[in-house]
């Protein structure tokens, strides 16, 4: 394959070609023969009127008259199911949290102290001075 031949093939297809390359290709004595051959092949290929048989149209009619099989319904149904399940889960979680707050440990108050520190005022550098006012 030469660049000249390729340019002629592209020209036959109506594609953009470099004008200088085209001029060079057209100088070849084989150029006209090649272009005529391309046109002849196109005519032969396009003259074939191939159509599907009657059975094809009958089967298609049967398929479409009973409704199109589609997979799009499944994802839509799945999405709706997941959304509904999420909503139910969210409501149930909220109810559970609310119930737990009302009846949980907070309602019983703080635990009773098991150890009490008495903090005395004064200088802490000389040790702890007993608070006599607290003596019985």
């Amino acid at each position: 394959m030469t660049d000249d031949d390729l340019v002629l093939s592209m020209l036959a297809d109506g594609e953009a070609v470099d004008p200088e390359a085209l001029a060079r290709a057209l100088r070849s004595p084989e150029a006209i023969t090649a272009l005529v051959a391309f046109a002849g092949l196109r005519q032969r290929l396009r003259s074939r009127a191939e159509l599907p048989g009657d059975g094809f149209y009958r089967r298609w009619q049967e398929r479409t008259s009973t409704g199109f099989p589609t997979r799009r319904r499944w994802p839509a149904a799945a999405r709706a199911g997941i959304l509904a399940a999420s909503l139910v889960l969210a409501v149930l979680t909220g109810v559970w949290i609310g119930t737990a707050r009302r009846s949980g440990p907070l309602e019983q108050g703080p635990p009773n102290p098991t150890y009490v520190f008495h903090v005395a005022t004064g200088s802490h550098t000389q040790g702890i001075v007993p608070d006599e006012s607290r003596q019985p």
Partner: protein
Amino acid sequence: MAPALDGLFELHHVAVYRYLLRQTGLRADAEDLTQEVFLRALRAIDGYERRGRDRAWLLSIAHNLVVDGSRRAQRRPRIDAGIAPDSLACRGNAMLDALALEQAMERLPALEREALVLREVIGLSYAEIAEITEATPDAVAARLYRARSGMRRLLDRDDGGSSDRSA
């Protein structure tokens, strides 16, 4: 959704069928696959952005079906392919010409045959063929040139052989 598919079917089913007939070589397979193309199109039509390239889109689906079809490896000889009943009604030279064309197409490498069909039978541009076949436009140009050269050589040889036999 279905009306949209109906419109696509009416406009493009012949092009899809002709492409598949040339690719599979069998009318029955081409008919089955053509219907499969439109059923797949229906499933994908929601995500498809229509930009006036319906035919290229449908042919892309057809191309993928052909590529995926392992049964093509065991297909019958393509010599019977594409000889439509109306073609059978043809007489004499027209019938021989159709057979010679089929035989020559059969002998082309698959990629070259596909490019030739998409260009000459369906009438797509290089850019559209490149998109469908997942190739570059330059590669499409090269395939088309090789296909044309190959067809020319094969048909000339057949014509020469016929002439020799008739002589």
